[in-house]
């Protein structure tokens, strides 16, 4: 009984320690361990969890760990699997953050970071553009995308204090109204006019 909890912890510890970059890069490694090796999930279940992960907040690896842990061993299974997947990055980053304060003023390290900054800006931009390419282009999504992108830049340039949380909540409210309430209202008024 304890054995399976330990195995959940160790398997997700390994996944946490070997997945770089986060997001979709970790899926092949997760599949190899969780589906092929341990047989905790079927291929269909993994796909289903990935779909869930897409529409819930939080890193995919953490979502898969929580779900798998719960399925195999209930609440404590989910706690240990999640702890396992988080622990390696926590320890590594903790070590680096201590080191960072000592080395950041070294001229070579500082120069390396000048380069890294350019890479990071580019990585974020390409990830965003890739999502834009995949996004379904509709009368809703295109204007919203343009408004949000320009709003963010205006807030930044004029140093306005505005939280993106409100933009996300606004998108949620708009989606609920346009794609759920409005079709219901339309149906109702159509029925009444038919009478």
């Amino acid at each position, binding site marked *: 009984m304890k054995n399976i909890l330990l195995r959940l912890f160790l398997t997700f510890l390994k996944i946490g320690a070997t997945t770089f970059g986060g997001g979709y890069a970790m899926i092949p490694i997760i599949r190899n361990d969780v589906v092929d090796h341990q047989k905790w999930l079927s291929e269909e279940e993994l796909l289903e969890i990935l779909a869930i992960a897409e529409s819930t907040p939080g890193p995919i690896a*953490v979502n898969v760990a929580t779900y798998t842990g719960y399925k195999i061993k209930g609440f404590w299974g989910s706690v240990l699997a999640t702890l396992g997947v988080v622990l390696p990055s926590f320890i590594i980053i903790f070590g*680096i953050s201590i080191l960072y304060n000592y080395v950041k003023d070294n001229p070579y390290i500082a120069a390396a970071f000048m380069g890294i900054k350019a890479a990071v*800006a580019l990585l974020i931009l*390409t990830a965003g553009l890739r999502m834009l390419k995949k996004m379904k282009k509709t009368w809703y999504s295109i204007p919203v*995308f343009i408004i*949000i992108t320009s709003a963010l830049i205006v807030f930044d340039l004029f140093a306005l204090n505005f939280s993106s949380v409100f933009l996300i909540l606004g998108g949620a409210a708009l989606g609920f109204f346009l794609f759920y309430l409005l079709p219901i209202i339309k149906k109702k008024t159509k029925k009444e006019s038919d009478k």
Partner: protein
Amino acid sequence: MIYLLLFIEFLKIGLFSFGGGYGMLSMMKETVINRNWLSEAQMLDFIGIAESTPGPIAINMATFIGTAQGGILGGAIATLGVILPSFVIILLIAIILKNILQSKPFQAIMAGIRPVIVGLIVGTGLIFTYGLIGLKDVSTFSFDYKSLIIFVILAAITLAYPRIFKKRINPLILIAFSIFFGIALFAI
């Protein structure tokens, strides 16, 4: 009380971090700059480190910022804050709400959110890019042509890589290139 503040701020970031990693960067940027925890340049350093180490970016960033503000306990509390929302939500889905994702209202809400997330990520990428080459503060106008050169070279590598190797460039390889050009242009 720095611990409580870290916990609440990262709980908020964790709750709204859709879109796999990059989705929460605009919120994280607002938080760390408003709270004076990091400058925009330091934030880019941190993201670079988070990209080059294992584990999800959101967690790496939480550990890093938390540790810088409140030592190991601060790091642990920020990390706990950022994963708690997704932990609770996935647990609820696994236990009872399996069908909520297929429900019409939920799908309508997600359709409303999706383009917002794409806009947030593209916008953040653009902000970091023009900040990098010094175009943010036009009054001082400290144009950083070296960073622009590195950015253009890296963009060319990103575009050329799939044509040669038939797959997308691994972020780690891009970061290795960026370190090389950073040292070549800024230290030598």
